[in-house]
């Protein structure tokens, strides 16, 4: 992991002191709320439905066991003993006090963490593949580049007051596990014919009220030009992005209204006009950052684990955990284990202080002290020996973290929704819980196979519903919660925005509607090997729409 140097530590300490002073002046009334709000947001403090919410940055999802223990400590002392991992690999505490923020930020700084730029119209946390550095299908580890982007974007003097928030994601594997095409800038590591590393650059993706899939702006960008080119994209956006309408201020709107060709011309012109070597990354700079992410020296192990195999043969729950939650590691004998934060009937992404400490202990014992946060609101222990899987599973089960449901119907992404969020129009958590219980039986979920259900409690789409295989959007109509259903969304290399099925469903109808969708899939799929999203692409909306709306229309006749 990246470790702060003296500059980084001083940088964060200065920011803590600055924001602490701003808080003091706000509490005394020297600053009005209008004057203070912009600083509050850029330091990750939201005013939500019940309380202030603090959003802590977890750069590209990387966490050490030491940091997890500190988060647990903060949860106990300053919050209500739990936190929530988000779809941007950050952590949220829902019950913090503004008056406690200075103390919390000092605690975070002590473990090289902060809340800088987790909100506001600035460049937010750069997210990355949660299996970075370990996945067998990886081209190159994206984390060094994500760290370089983080350093460049932190308190950038030109990009602190953008037209709107700005989100960057980077992926280094052949499978896109970072949803890069749904971001303002998406970066895919590629190799050219000469074997040189570069980036396929996408721009103008986003969800919210106007979902768009990003467009390719550059097929191959040499790696050492990463910062210069991204800087040029930001400059073009900052100069031309709309500031007249908050809902049309994202770069996706600029790309849509002006066209990708216009965008490319502008960015390439700015990039070409740079003074020679301006922001070009030097090899020694790249090497210095890359050194922080050197793979750990893992002892050699057999490719397969007899112990784990024997356990799976007699323990169905462990077999499911092993099949669904363990990704093949680059190093034989190891796996990257996803810890599901989606217990059946539980709240997606929530974790208690005790559970955080347990995961920290397990990270130390089984994963070189390292953990990751995925944008799908789960945790990852990236370096687990296959022989350790049984013991790890036992420990997770005892803590309520042992569900072997990763990638299945009960592995739901859900935003906090109307239970917590001041922007929400409907609840998302109870819907997620009910769906989770309906599809919680492992055999049933396994039969359905890979299915990404994503739920948002409002049009802002923090639950990423637009790119769910089944997406659910909670709205309010005439005082009642109503849920719009979308099908066929995808956040991977075949990214697509889901299609609306038709009229929305009431809260007591939506779970049945989801079940209907799965029943149509099961009836019409070519076979168990045809996943839901593939079947939908083949079949189209028609059979699902018929089942949802027309099949019952004649029932009263």
């Amino acid at each position, binding site marked *: 992991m990246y470790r702060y140097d003296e500059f980084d530590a001083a940088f964060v300490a200065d920011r803590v002191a600055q924001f602490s002073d701003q808080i003091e002046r*706000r*509490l*005394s*009334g020297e600053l009005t*709320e209008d004057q203070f709000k912009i600083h509050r947001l850029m330091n990750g403090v939201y*005013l*939500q*439905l*019940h*309380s*202030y919410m603090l959003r802590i940055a977890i750069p590209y999802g990387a966490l050490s066991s030491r940091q997890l223990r500190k988060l647990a400590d903060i949860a*106990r002392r300053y*919050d*209500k*003993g*739990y936190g929530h991992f988000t779809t941007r690999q950050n952590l949220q505490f829902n019950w*913090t*006090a*503004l*008056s*406690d923020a200075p103390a919390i930020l000092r605690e975070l700084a002590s473990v090289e963490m902060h809340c800088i730029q987790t909100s506001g119209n600035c460049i937010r946390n750069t997210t990355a593949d949660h299996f970075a550095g370990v996945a067998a299908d990886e081209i190159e580890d994206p984390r060094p580049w994500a760290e370089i982007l983080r350093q460049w974007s932190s308190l950038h003097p030109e990009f602190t007051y953008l037209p709107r928030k700005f989100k960057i994601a980077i992926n280094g594997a052949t499978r896109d596990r970072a949803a890069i095409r749904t971001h303002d800038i998406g970066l895919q590591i590629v190799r050219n014919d000469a074997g040189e590393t570069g980036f396929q650059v996408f721009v103008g993706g986003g969800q919210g009220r106007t979902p768009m899939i990003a467009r390719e702006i550059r097929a191959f960008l040499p790696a050492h030009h990463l910062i210069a080119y991204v800087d040029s994209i930001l400059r073009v956006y900052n100069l031309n992005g709309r500031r007249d309408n908050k809902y049309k201020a994202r770069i996706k709107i600029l790309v849509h209204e002006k066209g990708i060709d216009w965008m490319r011309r502008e960015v390439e012109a700015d990039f070409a006009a740079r003074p020679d070597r301006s922001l070009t990354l030097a090899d020694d700079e790249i090497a210095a950052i890359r050194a922080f992410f050197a793979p750990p020296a893992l002892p050699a192990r057999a490719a397969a684990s007899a112990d784990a195999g024997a356990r799976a043969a007699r323990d169905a729950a462990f077999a499911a955990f092993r099949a669904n939650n363990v990704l093949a590691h680059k190093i034989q004998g190891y796996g990257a284990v996803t810890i599901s934060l989606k*217990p059946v*009937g*539980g*709240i997606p992404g*929530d974790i*208690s*202080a*005790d*559970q955080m400490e347990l995961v920290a202990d397990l990270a130390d014992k089984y994963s070189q002290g390292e953990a990751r946060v995925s944008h799908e609101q789960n945790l990852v222990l990236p370096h687990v020996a296959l022989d350790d899987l049984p013991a790890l599973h036992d420990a997770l089960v*005892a*803590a*309520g973290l042992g569900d072997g449901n990763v990638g299945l119907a009960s592995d739901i992404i859900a935003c*906090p929704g*109307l*239970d*917590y969020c001041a922007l*929400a129009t409907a*609840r998302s*958590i*109870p819907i997620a*819980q009910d769906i989770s219980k309906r599809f919680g039986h492992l055999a049933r979920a396994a039969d359905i196979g890979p299915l990404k259900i994503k739920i948002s409690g409002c049009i802002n789409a923090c639950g990423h519903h637009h790119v769910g295989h089944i997406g659910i959007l909670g709205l*309010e109509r005439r*005082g009642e*919660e109503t849920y719009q259903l979308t099908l066929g969304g995808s956040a991977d290399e075949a990214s697509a925005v889901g299609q609306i099925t038709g009229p929305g469903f009431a809260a007591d109808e939506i779970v049945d509607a989801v079940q209907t969708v799965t029943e149509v899939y099961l009836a019409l799929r070519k076979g168990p090997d045809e996943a839901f999203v593939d079947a939908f692409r083949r079949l189209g909306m028609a059979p699902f729409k018929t089942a949802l709306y027309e099949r019952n229309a004649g029932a009263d006749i």
Partner: protein
Amino acid sequence: MARAFASQVLSANRLADGRVVFLGPDRAGWVDDFHAAGVWRTQAEATAAIGAAQTFVAGNVVLDVAPVEVTGDGDRLRPVSLRDAIRAALRPSVAPRLPSGFTLDTTFGGGI
């Protein structure tokens, strides 16, 4: 035809900790129990209440004063909208669920 005035209470967030509070019946302070809030049944009462509430905003006690339409009386007093009901309960409609043996600070306050 003009809509009849709907009874309301006034909510706000306490500046220091962000917690939801309600203007008390004497308009001289804030309470964190929805059922202890002042209920304003005429436009004139509501206008006076908002005026009183704004002095607390100016005094850096609370922020984001918002009227909450209510129905009923006494123990049956309820916010009309689901959003306001969740907010008035001072807690989410779903509590975090944890397996036995794991602790959680369950001091969610209030309740309706």
